């Protein structure tokens, strides 16, 4: 199996998915690396006859990300934003970006993973269902709940609404 060729084809998508699940670029890079090395293990579970490689890779990234999130949850520190944190130096855009990031990361994992794959990666819902081992109805309902939660969390940033601050 040509792992480097697969890396070239899929690493950007996997990195973005891992980054948005964990909120950490360093973790995302580690996860992507682990994910491809997993393919070389003799006990690797990938079966080309059962699932396309992209679905398997995304599933592996998801599992690795959830592992890291759980480990992190046991530690007291919360994930820090990637950009500058000083309010004086933050532009409006970075403030909005930080707010969205926080809102997505505080969603339940079951909702955030669906939202990231559907909104940010624009994957068809049927493929998301395959990746997450869900039926299509569950994917739709999780996506709706995620969007409803985000609507509420980000209401103050809606362009047509007044700031409540």
């Amino acid at each position, binding site marked *: 199996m040509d792992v480097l060729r697969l*890396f*070239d084809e899929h690493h950007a998508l996997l*990195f973005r998915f891992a*980054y948005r699940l964990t909120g950490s670029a360093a973790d995302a890079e580690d996860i992507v*690396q682990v994910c491809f090395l997993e393919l*070389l293990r003799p006990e690797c579970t990938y079966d080309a006859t059962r699932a396309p490689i992209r679905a398997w890779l995304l599933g592996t990234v998801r599992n690795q990300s959830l592992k890291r999130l759980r480990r992190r949850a046991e530690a007291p520190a919360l994930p820090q934003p990637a950009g500058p944190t000083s309010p004086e130096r933050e532009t409006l855009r970075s403030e909005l970006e930080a707010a969205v*990031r926080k809102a997505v990361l505080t969603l339940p994992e079951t909702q955030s993973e669906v939202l990231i794959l559907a909104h940010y990666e624009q994957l068809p819902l049927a493929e998301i269902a395959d990746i997450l081992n869900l039926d299509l109805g569950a994917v739709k309902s999780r996506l709706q709940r995620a*969007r409803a939660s985000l609507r509420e969390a980000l209401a103050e940033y809606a362009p047509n609404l007044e700031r409540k601050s």
Partner: protein
Amino acid sequence: MTDTDLDDLLNAWLAPSPDESLRERLQAGIAVRRPRPVRRLLTPLRLWAMAATVILVVLIVNPDAFSKKVSTYTVDSEVTLHRGPEGVGLPQRVLMTSYNDAGTEVLRAWSFPDQPVETALLKTRMLANDTRERLARPFEKIAKYYYIVKYGLATPPEDPDDAYAIVYPNRPDTPLLIGKRAALVSSDCRTIHGGAEVIGHDVVMNYATTILQQRNGGARKLTLWMAPELSCFALRATIHEMQPDGSWKLVSEKKALKVNVNP
């Protein structure tokens, strides 16, 4: 907030690009984890070592494995086993191909015709027994020398196993020792141990034969038609057993069917 508004808001969260070094790090990880290719395991030196080990094991198990004995003839024979009513279902016939090597019969092939299962079972059992004996032989020798050295026990010199002549008069798994090979061949098949006597001469398959008869304990008699020209090969062999009324009953008879010269 409309769906479009929400989408616009969500799009504000941009993902960075992975570090350029990620590919190189993965390559380094692959180099560490990649299983060693088979060709590196099978270096020429290791192949030679493996071959030498296999040959050594084969020689221990079967010292004659690589000795090429050339026979100038083989004989196809048929054995008929005259079993009583208790032998129903058991093999009644045996086909053998064999030759004599300086007075001792060497089996090349055998089978129970039309009974492949019995043939396979017996061959498997014989192979297992033979292998077990060959494996045990070196240890027996070591044990013997150990006792000689430790206790000064000297055993009388023994004849090597191949000093004795063997015949297969009925079954491939019941060879009979009939005396010393050298004496048998040098006497034109007139001498075998156990009080055997020459009871006549005959011609079998156009070969002159000496008929030797040996009685074992009086209740059994083995008769062999041995051809001096074929290194004392028994072209015919019969075994009789004494019945309670004192009569002799033929229990097995081996007959040469064909002599293949220069097979």
